[in-house]
């Protein structure tokens, strides 16, 4: 059952990610990103990371994806439904594919051949409890820095995007 779900989500993730990078229509890319993020959230759930999965849905789909679609709509002349995104020339395309295939193959070979330390996961009662404790004790400084970073990003983004 879980294996089946894993393959389903993996298929969704990889299929929609291919649509993201291969589609000519930039809106198709943006909307298929929805399924990628959703599939990744599904993978997180299968990995017992429910809080991360929900954060993924909330931040990526509710925030970043909406921002990206807004960005597309604001930076393209939206007079029709055909919004193309240009690709670089053919030479670059072929080189890029070759490089990427090499990267993928080497990564997969690496991942399959390395003997990973296979420790069983200690499933806590509720993940959110332990995540909360981790944030407030072990990772207190990064947590605070992340908060400050978000504030800076908020102010900075507003400042940059403001019309002069």
């Amino acid at each position, binding site marked *: 059952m879980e294996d089946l779900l894993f393959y389903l989500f993996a298929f969704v993730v990889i299929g929609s990610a291919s649509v993201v990078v291969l589609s000519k229509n930039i809106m198709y890319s*943006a909307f298929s990103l929805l399924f990628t993020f959703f599939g990744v959230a599904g993978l997180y759930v299968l990995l017992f990371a429910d809080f991360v999965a929900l954060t993924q849905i909330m931040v990526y789909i509710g925030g970043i994806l909406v921002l*990206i679609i807004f960005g597309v709509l604001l930076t393209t002349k939206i007079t029709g439904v055909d919004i193309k995104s240009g690709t670089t020339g053919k030479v670059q395309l072929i080189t890029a594919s070759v490089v990427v295939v090499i990267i993928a193959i080497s990564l997969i070979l690496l991942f399959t051949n390395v003997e990973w330390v296979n420790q069983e996961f200690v499933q806590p009662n509720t*993940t959110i409890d332990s995540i909360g404790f981790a944030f407030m004790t072990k*990772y207190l400084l990064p947590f605070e820095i992340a908060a400050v970073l978000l504030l800076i990003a908020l102010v*900075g983004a507003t400042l940059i995007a403001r019309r002069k």
Partner: protein
Amino acid sequence: MSVGLTEYLIVSAILFSLGIFGIITRKNAIMVLMGLELVLNAANINFVAFAKYGGMNIDGQVAALFVIILAAAEAAVALAIVLNIYQNFKHINVDEIVKMKD
């Protein structure tokens, strides 16, 4: 075949490569950003997979959450920059934007 760590890593490797492919082949700045999100997601899958199978326990999930926070901040700032570029150049093709100033 029972699904274990390796399968998750393979999914993340393919996702990572697709993201890289998107980053290098596309002209549109927002498409580049989307590729970047794919790469970040691939990294996140790794973190969470290691959290379950690699003995990282909750630390892996915490790292993934930090990545999500960073991605949110990065997307906001990047899109602000893209909008600004669009106002100045009337297009957002990354390979044609070579000057810092008009």
